[in-house]
């Protein structure tokens, strides 16, 4: 999924903050979840040590990624599974489409998966005449509403219960069993409608597509965490299972799960443990199993010494829930399946910064650091944001200004002359910069700093450091 042609973040955010329903929904949801997270994290006396171990395990894996990927491939193959490698989205889509075609089926059920959204798999399947049915409740809301996901954990966070009821009543019939006419906006009734809508689909569909939260190199095991049971349905019932997994999702050993099965649920849904976690190794209970290992820009991220820490991400979404920018702008403004602080560092690295939107993402932050504090694998998001700002293309006026400033600051005598000149002209400097332009936008809510009559350097020389 590309969100092609979207304007840059500031324009998207400016539109989003005028949507009062959206702001209400986001504020309610993010505040609910951040409190839940804080209380279950505080319960563990060794949280900081788990976080450090999680960080170190991920860094170690990335440092030895080739070895562990080969080990994974061998273990999955030995357990009766098939391993495919996809350097980019096109190849991954080609592989999956081919695998589905081989089964002769034209319907697939899907477990919520960021990786398949990133590569636009549903659209690629549709072009091949294959319908992909999303089964996670939030993904269902997004799919029925012909909408974009706006949060990593709860993609329909921007929708209120009343809006969800409307979508179900209007759209469910187009995709299968219609919603009951008397449907209310009680979350319980909405969940029940989804259960009935999808049950027949689970029982009849022969092919499922999933992602994975973790892959264990040592054993060839895949791990999926979920809440609703739609994941279990897709992983268990269909005859063919295809899992598309980013190469950074690897963990070296089975034992490493003891860290991540504590870090992820508490950071993500704010629960001690999510309702269901499924693990399987190779072809299980008579199933045909395919694993598609996906690069799609990840090796480029890996090559960046500062930016590579973004590959530690376990997609918990804790950083979104504490971000003051996300809370107001919402997920759509980021123009990517990865919104929020992690998206602001992941998207420009995965996609490059050639579009105005992607180049604007490293600025979609106040650098307050709340995201770093809650990150369960200690990704220093502000550090990467600043690093990427340095690499982003800068407008001509800013480059010229910076070059002029560089010329002045380069030599003390030039700076002294510039300061004296500014002091003499200070009466002519307005409190607000003339517009239009970025400087006038800045001074709309701030005064330009006052210029003193005498510079500090001149005062120091005249008074000998204040002694005369």
């Amino acid at each position, binding site marked *: 999924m590309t969100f092609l042609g979207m304007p840059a973040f500031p324009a998207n955010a400016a539109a989003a903050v005028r949507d009062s329903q959206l702001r209400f929904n986001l504020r*309610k949801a993010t505040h*609910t979840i951040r409190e839940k997270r804080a209380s279950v994290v505080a319960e563990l006396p*060794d949280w900081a040590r*788990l976080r450090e*171990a999680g960080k*170190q395990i991920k860094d*170690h894996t*990335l*440092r030895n*990624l*080739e070895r562990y*990927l080969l080990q994974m491939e061998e273990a999955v193959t030995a*357990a009766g599974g098939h391993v495919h*490698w*996809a*350097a980019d989205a096109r190849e991954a889509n080609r592989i999956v489409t081919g695998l589905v075609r081989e089964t002769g089926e034209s319907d697939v059920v899907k477990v919520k998966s960021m990786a398949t959204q990133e590569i636009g798999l549903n659209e690629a399947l549709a072009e091949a005449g294959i319908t992909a049915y999303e089964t996670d*409740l939030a993904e269902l809301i997004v799919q029925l509403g012909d909408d974009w996901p706006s949060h990593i*954990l*709860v993609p*329909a966070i921007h929708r209120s219960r009343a809006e969800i009821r409307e979508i179900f009543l209007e759209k469910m019939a187009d995709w299968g069993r219609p919603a009951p006419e008397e449907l209310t906006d009680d*979350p*319980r009734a*909405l*969940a*029940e409608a*989804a*259960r009935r809508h999808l*049950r027949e689909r*689970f029982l009849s569909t022969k092919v499922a597509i999933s992602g994975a939260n973790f892959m264990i190199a040592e054993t060839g*095991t895949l791990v999926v965490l979920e*809440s*609703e*049971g739609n994941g*279990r*349905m897709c*992983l*268990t*019932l269909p005859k063919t299972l295809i899992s598309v997994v980013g*190469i950074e999702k690897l963990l070296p050993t*089975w034992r490493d*799960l*003891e*860290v991540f*099965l504590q870090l992820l649920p508490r950071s993500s849904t704010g629960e*001690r*443990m999510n*309702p*269901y*976690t*499924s*693990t*399987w*190794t190779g072809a299980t*209970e008579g199933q045909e199993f395919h694993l598609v*290992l996906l*690069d799609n820009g990840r090796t*480029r991220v*890996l*090559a960046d*010494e500062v930016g590579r820490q973004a590959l530690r991400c376990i997609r918990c979404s804790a950083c979104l829930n504490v971000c003051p920018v996300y809370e107001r702008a919402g997920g759509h403004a980021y123009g990517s399946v990865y919104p929020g602080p992690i998206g602001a560092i992941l998207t420009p690295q995965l996609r490059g910064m050639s579009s105005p939107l992607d180049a604007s993402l490293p600025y979609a932050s106040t650098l307050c650091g709340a995201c770093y504090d809650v990150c369960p694998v200690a990704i220093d998001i502000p550090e990467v944001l600043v690093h990427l700002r340095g690499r982003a293309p800068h407008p001509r006026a800013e480059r010229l200004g910076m070059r002029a400033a560089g010329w002045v600051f380069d030599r003390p005598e030039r700076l002294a002359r510039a300061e004296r000149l500014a002091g003499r002209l200070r009466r002519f400097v307005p409190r607000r910069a003339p517009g239009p332009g970025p400087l006038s936008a800045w001074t709309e809510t701030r005064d330009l700093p006052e210029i003193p009559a005498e510079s500090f350097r001149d005062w120091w020389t005249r008074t000998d450091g204040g002694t005369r």
Partner: protein
Amino acid sequence: MSDRELILARIRAAVTSAPPNEIVRDYRTSAGPLDRAELIELFAERVADYRAVVHVTGEDEVAATIAAALAAQGLTRPLVPGGLPVEWVPEGAVADDPPLSDAELDAVGGVVTGCAVAIAETGTIVLDAGPGQGRRALTLLPDYHLCVVRAGQIVAGVPQGVAVLDPSRPLTWISGPSATSDIELNRVEGVHGPRTLEVVVVR
């Protein structure tokens, strides 16, 4: 060059500048000071937090507890997996032998199983498709799941649970009934998996 060779070559080139690092496991991995009675109490409390129903009974009361729970649900023909201890098999039980179709499983009202391990700190039961647990679909399609946990199967935390589980088996970790937080981030119990989870702990 194949995509496999391409990806591996890119990785080799990318990681040359990455420093080696050390993994320190100084988080809690031992059982801690809890004795068996305290483990049972913690486990029962944490399972109940998920709005699952929990009973703690003695060995000689298990059958009666199971029967009463099933009667309360109005379940007269519950499903049982092969290998369930005979004293836990309720009256009128249906066996998965020969294996039921998915549609038949969907029509079964409830299922009674054991488990492989239980984790006190998180209120989690783990099934490994072993004796008394059955294939994964058995605890998925029926709307009601009653799981019997022996006190000796309860470990303190996640590390102790991971240590005793066999990754070559298909595992299902269950923490409360099926739930969703997708609507305004409020937890609602009961979506696609069993909407009612009842746990019987045998002292």
